[in-house]
């Protein structure tokens, strides 16, 4: 029997790796993938707690998180394509129109 603690620690590690990726990469698509990874780490937390508490509500939340991630993927990638058409690049350093 694997303890709940192991699942939560694994989820924390994945979330931190995702955070490091978001903060250190420049390619917008890789940043986007890191955000998906962070969402998945939270999903793992929800499902692990749902099992150890004997309640299915956490899994319903995972269902909604996945829906929001799908919507986010569609809109985010459309935004990246629109940006690429304008600037010929998807480097986040080039997103400086509102930079002071």
């Amino acid at each position, binding site marked *: 029997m694997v303890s709940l603690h192991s699942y939560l620690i694994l989820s924390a590690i994945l979330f931190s790796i995702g955070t490091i990726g978001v903060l250190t990469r420049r390619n917008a698509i890789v940043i986007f993938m890191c955000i998906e990874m962070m969402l998945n780490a939270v999903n793992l937390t929800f499902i692990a707690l749902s099992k150890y508490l004997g309640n299915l509500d956490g*899994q319903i939340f995972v269902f909604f998180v996945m829906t929001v991630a799908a919507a986010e*993927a569609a809109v985010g990638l459309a935004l990246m394509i*629109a940006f690429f058409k304008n600037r010929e690049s998807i480097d986040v350093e080039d997103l400086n129109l509102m930079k002071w």
Partner: protein
Amino acid sequence: METLFFSIVAAIAILMSILVIRCKNPINSALSLIMTFFCLATLYVMLEAPFMAAIQVIVYAGAIMVLIVFVIMLLNIRTESGRRTQHALFLGAATGLFLLFQTWYFLSRSSLTGAKGAIDSAAIAKVGHTELIGQSLFTEFLLPFEITSILLLAAIVGAVVLAKKKV
């Protein structure tokens, strides 16, 4: 045995997620991320959530990652133009490690509290996981479910408008 299996799957998941942020080529990152999703689906099966494992593979590894790989290939980006400066790399890694330490600290000092629900292995084996999820989704969570459909409609319209030639 179960602990050993968990350790192997968790190690692969962590290794692949490190590859996601280390690979120069975005396609390699995307493939590593798909592998991470498969590892998480395996963990969902171990946590007695087979329906969640199925939609993890179908929706995440299937739909969302296909979309991402498709966009990477459409835009034809091979490698990053340049790295961030050393300061930014250091600060990013320090923030991530601090976050990890913080979550680890609080998790190791906390314990599971709260009322235990009625769903256990026997109930899932008897009724079926998908049926339990469906019952909960279409009775207790009906309103969020309907709101989600509006969200998806807005996302479809938004994506089409954004990807048009002239906005």
